[in-house]
């Protein structure tokens, strides 16, 4: 094996380690070979005198501090998550296309969401309306009592009672639905945040 082959093979075997370590090791062994060749050895003899490549690669691996290795692995991980410059360029160039599309998408979702709240508002106005009927019934009852027409007063009181019952029932249902919407919104936000 000549010098170039040896160095290529060594580089290949330790390529997975931090590039600084790889570079230093290859530099070191290049110097060792050059010094031997300078002394009169042939390339092959110099390579043979260094010992087995497996041992050399193993030695290099053993001596890299664990912290360096861990940092190196961690760096590799974060690197893979980053966008490549090419993708960033495409994103910028494509903005006139995907920008409006994204905006339209957002608008559609926003209006659908608003629709849900409009439905909720309608339900709450039902509560208000029923409350108004109760109030109306009570006033009617009092007015008729003052006029001394008892049957009419009874009718107003009855309708007020009926409206009150309905109002309580209606409000309970509406409350449950409003809570559901708020809960759903929260869940959506959490999911969205997680996916980022």
């Amino acid at each position, binding site marked *: 094996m000549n010098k170039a082959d040896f160095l290529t093979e060594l580089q290949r075997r330790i390529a997975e380690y931090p590039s600084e370590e790889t570079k*230093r*090791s290859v*530099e*070191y*062994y290049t*110097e*060792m070979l*050059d*010094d*031997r060749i*300078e002394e009169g050895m042939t390339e092959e003899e110099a390579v043979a005198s*260094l*010992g087995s490549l497996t*041992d*050399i690669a193993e*030695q*290099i691996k*053993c*001596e890299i*501090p664990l912290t360096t290795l861990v940092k190196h692995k961690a760096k590799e991980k974060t690197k893979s998550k980053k966008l490549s410059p090419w993708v960033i360029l495409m994103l910028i160039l494509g903005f006139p296309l995907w920008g409006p599309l994204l905006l339209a998408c957002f608008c559609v979702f926003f209006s659908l969401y608003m629709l849900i709240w409009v439905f909720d508002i309608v339900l709450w106005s039902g509560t208000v309306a029923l409350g108004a009927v109760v109030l109306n019934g009570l006033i009617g009852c009092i007015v008729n009592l003052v006029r001394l027409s008892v049957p009419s007063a009874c009718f107003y009181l009855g309708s007020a009672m009926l409206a009150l019952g309905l109002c309580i029932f209606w409000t309970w249902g509406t409350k449950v639905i409003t809570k559901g919407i708020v809960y759903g919104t929260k869940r959506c936000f959490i999911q969205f945040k997680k996916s980022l």
Partner: protein
Amino acid sequence: MDIQLKRGMLEICVLSALLREDSYGYKIVKDLQPYIEISESTLYPILRRLESAGALNVYSTEHNGRLRKYYAITEHGRGRIREFLNEWNGMLAIYNYIKEEMSENE
């Protein structure tokens, strides 16, 4: 020789090889070979360790149209040698004790 002991001895040997003058990898190996078994592949990690411990400095100089790395011992490195020599007195006492006991009770 015990591997831990040899490792420690090698570090001190390498530092001692730098006392006279700054030296480079191949020369260190050649200088030490008469005294202790050492190869380039064992020297490399030792140099790295000593460098990161601050016991030696590294610099590159041009030699025959290529770069050669020279190693220079630091004050910290000299301190390591002194430490070793001091420890050795204690080691020697232990050695003598063991030897005496062995010869008396063999």
